[in-house]
């Protein structure tokens, strides 16, 4: 502390900060919610409402949509996209873009498929193969990031080049060979492993407990200080909400049957939530995460504050590559193979759209990891629902596009509302 304390001691005490004026209990939660709504600080509410609306619509129109088995299906289909979208969040937070992730996912899957191939001279365990694949894609991402960070080539161009190059590598490898079948069970487990009902409950309990523990931790460190804290009521309400989501998911999965075979919580659901927790922690609780937001807000300000901006950029692009590889492996596991048609559908655009629908700004510095999860879920539900309705692919694209436009428009209006209300 500098000698600054001395001055102004004779001044009148300053007015209390806004947070200190809200009352506690249910009333306080309601007041805060109303304040947020009025000032356009909508958070995740619109997208959750949208997701519920989409589920309702399909539940009434499609016969095979509102079934436990289809729920498990939905998780297995969306998990890969969510992984890529997580990486996209960090890249967008910097105000950059990564167009190479679709084919980097392909490279990740390809590396895994090659390394597990029985009979080849470098065959290895599936776990090791996956680690290597993630490392390779992280390195590729890091190299692309270095060109952005040190040379100053726009990320759009660098990763567009990556898009072409890695597509070419996949074509060259698979054109002759055709499809590579993946037999390694560890690799296939990433999308297809099913937990026993009991294990599912335990996992739900663990993830539900994380949030109240984080609140408790914050309250313990803030003990004895005057800083504003989250109220107990809001913490309890949120914990209950998370608990309903977690236990509800497990309950539905445990209920699922695919032709007499009982299902359960699939591993990809756990992976999605696990990476959500880890990456949210990285973004919100660590100095690295803080620096990512700072660079996205103003790279010049970050540089002057002594933050190593190129280092942050390289790490973020490496992270994006690693998440792409993980997503790619999950997609490959879904079909037990890697073929020329990999990556499936519009993987790149779906991943970017997921993050953007989830409220991550393309201009950097604004957004959260949970946005990618919710966005991927919404896009996954839409596409899954439209599929069960046997609607043509053309319409699926059109509807996805319309939802993307609506979400971003709503977000833009909300931001303008926030700016006007001075928040």
């Amino acid at each position, binding site marked *: 502390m500098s000698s*600054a304390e001395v001055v*102004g001691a004779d001044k009148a005490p300053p007015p209390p900060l806004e947070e200190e004026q809200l009352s506690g209990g249910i009333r306080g939660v309601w007041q805060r919610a109303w304040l947020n709504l009025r000032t356009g600080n909508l958070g995740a509410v619109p997208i959750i409402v949208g997701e519920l609306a989409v589920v309702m619509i399909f539940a009434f129109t499609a016969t095979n949509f509102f079934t436990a088995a289809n729920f498990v299906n939905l998780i297995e289909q969306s998990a890969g996209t969510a992984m890529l979208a997580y990486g996209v969040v960090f890249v967008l937070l910097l105000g950059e873009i990564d167009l190479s992730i679709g084919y980097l996912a392909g490279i990740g899957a390809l590396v895994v498929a090659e390394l597990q191939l029985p009979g080849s001279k470098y065959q290895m365990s599936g776990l090791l193969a996956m680690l290597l694949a993630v490392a390779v894609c992280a390195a590729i991402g890091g190299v692309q990031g270095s060109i952005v960070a040190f040379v100053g080539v726009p990320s759009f161009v660098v990763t567009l080049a990556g898009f072409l190059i890695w597509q070419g590598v996949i074509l060259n490898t698979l054109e002759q060979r055709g499809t590579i079948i993946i037999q390694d069970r560890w690799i296939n487990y990433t999308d297809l492993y099913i937990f026993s009902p009991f294990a599912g409950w335990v996992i739900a309990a663990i993830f539900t407990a994380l949030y109240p523990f984080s609140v408790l931790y914050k309250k313990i460190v803030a003990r004895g200080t005057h800083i504003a804290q989250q109220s107990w009521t809001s913490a309890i309400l949120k914990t209950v909400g998370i608990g309903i989501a977690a236990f509800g998911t497990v309950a539905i999965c445990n209920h699922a049957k695919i032709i007499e075979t009982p299902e359960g919580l699939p591993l990809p659901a756990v992976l999605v939530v696990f990476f959500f927790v880890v990456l949210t922690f990285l973004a919100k609780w*660590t100095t690295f995460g803080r620096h990512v*937001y700072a660079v996205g807000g*103003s790279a010049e300000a970050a540089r002057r504050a002594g933050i190593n901006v190129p280092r942050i950029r390289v790490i973020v692009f490496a992270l994006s590559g690693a998440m792409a590889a993980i997503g790619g492996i999950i997609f490959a596991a879904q079909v037990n193979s890697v073929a020329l048609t990999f990556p499936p559908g519009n993987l790149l655009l779906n991943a970017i759209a997921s993050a953007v629908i989830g409220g991550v700004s393309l201009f950097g510095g604004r957004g959260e990891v949970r946005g990618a999860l919710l966005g991927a879920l919404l896009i996954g539900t839409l596409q899954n629902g439209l599929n069960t309705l046997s609607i043509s692919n053309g319409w699926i694209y059109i509807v996805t596009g319309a939802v993307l436009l609506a979400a971003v428009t709503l977000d833009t209006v909300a931001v303008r509302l926030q700016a006007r209300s001075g928040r």
Partner: protein
Amino acid sequence: MSDTPLLQLQNITKTFGSVQALTDVDFEVRAGEVMALVGDNGAGKSTLVKCIAGTHAADSGTIEFEGREVNIHGPKDAARLGIEVVYQDLALCDNLDVVQNMYLGRELNRAQILSEAPMEQHTAETLKSLAVTTIKSIRQTVATLSGGQRQSVAVARAVMWNSKLVVLDEPTAALGVAQTEQVLELVRRLGSQGLGVMLISHNLHDVFETADRITVLRLGRNVGVFERRETTQQAVVEAITAGVPTKVSGVSSAAGAGAEA
């Protein structure tokens, strides 16, 4: 005020290609005084600030801090010495809140995990101690603050780090009348606390409101140092626009060598 200046620059020369931005410039700030640095566009004010901040390295000349010769190679070196620069465009991140900006690049952490509570506590204390009381919440983003509030945050950030010298680059350039007064009050308070303050300004009114001494640069050279009490705005304006360099070295001439820095 001690006899050794807090910061003493001697014979600082800096060229950018063929452009001579600074020629044999001397400059000093004592602890507890507000030293203004004035000059027309292209006089070399910003270049001099960048040499002190470590953004540019001077081609020749010496920098002494508290009587010791120092080399400043970057913002971190400057910060280690106790020199904090508040730039014209503030260098705040609009998307981050007040606390996050106050600790930008120097977040308190335990094993890379942020320690939010002490940061928030300390920010609130620092702002209160500087009598910055117009900010509604220290958890609101800087984008929502007024110009004066933003400047206050930037200045508060500079003094929070046990700094000895605070360099303010055009702190009132974008502010209204009331906000300017608020910031000038803050500047005077810093000086009276025993910090050295270097105030770079175009606005002679601000300078005469706050400064103890005034250094005038013209075309990258020293024109002179004025005691505020013994001079007039008229004299300083003349020095800025038509002053004669106090020392001439080598063969280079004073005329026409000005460079925007």
